[in-house]
């Protein structure tokens, strides 16, 4: 039973995402619920080889929390960055900050990098080839270590919990 289920839904998260997307696009009608389900099964099955290392989500509530945090950070950071952009340019102190990574999963690292980029004020500029460091460019920072710590606290640790533990 379980194996049958796993074979049908190699990634439940993905299937769920697809099904939701379908319903969002077409409206929540019974017909589309069925059709969306069919697609949510078929598409991941068909493209299975293309996402070999997407890990399953182990902690769904943590994910919700993480998303909220990110959204909040985006809102706040936007305001701070807006001030920098509009204010005198002499004040900004940009920096390249290499951040040691505790994450080991590629997908989680990529998500972290994306999150860093999405929150205004930081852009993830590179991931070292050995996946040990994330290079962050920050628009205005006075304490690199504090920045690293903040990212670690707010994003990396939750991600680790969601995907790896």
């Amino acid at each position, binding site marked *: 039973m379980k194996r049958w289920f796993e074979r049908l839904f190699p990634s439940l998260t993905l299937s769920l995402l697809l099904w939701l997307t379908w319903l969002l696009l077409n409206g929540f009608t019974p017909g589309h619920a069925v059709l969306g389900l069919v697609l949510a099964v078929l598409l991941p099955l068909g493209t299975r080889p293309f996402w070999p290392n997407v890990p399953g989500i182990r902690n769904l509530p943590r994910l919700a929390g993480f998303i909220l945090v990110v959204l909040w950070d985006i809102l706040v950071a936007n305001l701070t*960055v807006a001030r920098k952009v509009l204010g005198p340019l002499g004040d900004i102190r*940009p920096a390249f900050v290499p951040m040691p990574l505790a994450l080991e999963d590629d997908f989680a690292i990529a998500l972290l990098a*994306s999150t860093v980029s999405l929150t*205004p*004020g930081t852009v993830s500029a590179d991931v070292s080839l050995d996946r040990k460091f994330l290079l962050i460019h920050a628009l205005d920072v006075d304490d690199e270590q504090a920045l690293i710590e903040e990212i670690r606290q707010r994003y990396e640790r939750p991600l680790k919990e969601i995907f790896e533990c």
Partner: protein
Amino acid sequence: MDAVIEWLVAACMVIGGVFALIGSIGLARLPDFYTRLHGPTKATTLGVGGTIAASLLYFSWQARQLQLHEVLIILFLFITAPVSAHMLAKAAMHRQLKRLKGTRGEPWEQ
């Protein structure tokens, strides 16, 4: 009620527009490529976000029914825009673009 929503829609819209503009101002104004790279993130997040919120509200209000499909735009953008920024940053580092004086840290060899 309608007026409230109308105001809400208007507010979201304008907020979106303002942040889109700020992002573009950043793009135009900031001194080096790496700092300019921060501009568009604003446009992506709050800029588009604001207009999407406005649209969402507006059409839900019009149809008297929740219309969430615009959320997908934001979803897709949140997935794809960081990749663009990341790739551009890599390109800039590869090209060894000039940094603003006083930038701490070093870009990586590509």
